[in-house]
């Protein structure tokens, strides 16, 4: 225990061994207080929540000969515009299979379209939908992350970030989100 034995060593001058009556217990209260204070400090200062990382795989640029033709019926293009708005359509920009529509992120926005179109494509071709993300110069980093996140939520694996074409920029301009 924490008591210190101070009763021994009785080599006093008088030759009399005097046993002390006073308690030799050390009061640990203050020490415990201090220890807990420090614990609290360290708990609060350590970063409990480690940052998370989302994996992003870009298509290999050099393998031009390796690129598979993408069936337009399976392709959904998402254009990222300004003010956290986006526009999507199926097929090619020249002759989209669905009219390009402007929406925003979140449950009622792009996710609904992703799920709905994904089901359509799966029913028609039996394969997963391919999503092309085309961020414009006016979009922000968080738009890109949100879009990738939406795809993660709906469980789509067939996706790529592609450069936007002038025609698509015009489309964004037309709809006033560039």
């Amino acid at each position, binding site marked *: *225990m*924490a008591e210190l034995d101070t009763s021994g060593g009785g080599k006093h001058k008088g030759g009399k061994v005097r046993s002390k009556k006073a308690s030799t*217990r050390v*009061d*640990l*209260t203050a*020490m*415990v207080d201090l*220890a*807990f204070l*420090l*614990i609290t400090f*360290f*708990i609060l*200062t*350590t*970063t409990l*929540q*480690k*940052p*998370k*990382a*989302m*994996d*992003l*795989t*870009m*298509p*290999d*640029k*050099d393998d031009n000969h390796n690129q598979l033709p993408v069936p337009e019926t399976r392709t959904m293009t998402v254009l*990222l515009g300004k003010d956290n708005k986006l526009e999507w359509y199926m097929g090619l920009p020249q002759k989209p299979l669905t009219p390009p529509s402007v929406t925003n992120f*979140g*449950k009622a926005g792009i996710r609904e379209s992703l799920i709905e179109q994904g089901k359509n494509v799966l029913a028609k071709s039996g394969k997963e939908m391919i999503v092309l993300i085309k*961020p*414009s*110069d*006016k*979009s*922000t*980093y*968080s*738009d*890109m*992350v*949100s879009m*990738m*996140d939406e795809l*993660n*939520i709906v469980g789509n694996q067939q996706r790529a*970030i592609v*450069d936007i074409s002038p025609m698509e920029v015009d489309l964004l301009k037309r709809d006033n989100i560039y």
Partner: protein
Amino acid sequence: MPRAKVSRKSTAIDMTAMCDVAFLLLTFFILSAKPKVEDPIHADIPASTTIQALPEVDFAQLLVAQGKVIFSVEGADVRLETLKGMADQYKIDFTPEELKAFQGLDNVSVPIGVLKQYLNMTNQERAGVAKTGVQVDTTDNNELYWWVKNARKADKLVHNKELKIAIKGDSKEEYPTIAKIIKTLQKQKVNKFGLITSLKAATK
């Protein structure tokens, strides 16, 4: 009949065990605590539902905010080799003191041209230096390209592992800056990297 005597017991509790536990926990927290590195420029990172944790070794980070890029790589040994590679690349001689100073440097926030000068400064002087970040553009020969390249080489040499690269970007950062960095990475066939995000609950 005599009254039952209430035994006068001491009310002091034995604190020894409590003290032991408290110090054990304290030791644990002190040892597991990792000093938080303050970013030279503030980045408000976007949220996502990803729950994949970030690696702690063999890891390089590109902090992107206000159009600037700040490069950092984990591990003093990897850092040393990285700087040696950069010294060869840019024909700059670093003294052993400067190499040592670089090992303790959390991130590279100045262009390579003024790095030598920066390493010779005291911490206080460094705080006053404008953090212009590592130069990056769309050409083949930008500084970021060589930092990443040399860091990858260094990690391969020291740990024999592939360096993992993650981008920590500010939410409001415009896409062209990000595109530039992605292009730089893709030039050296780094097609897979991480985007650092904070955790958000999925809106069901």
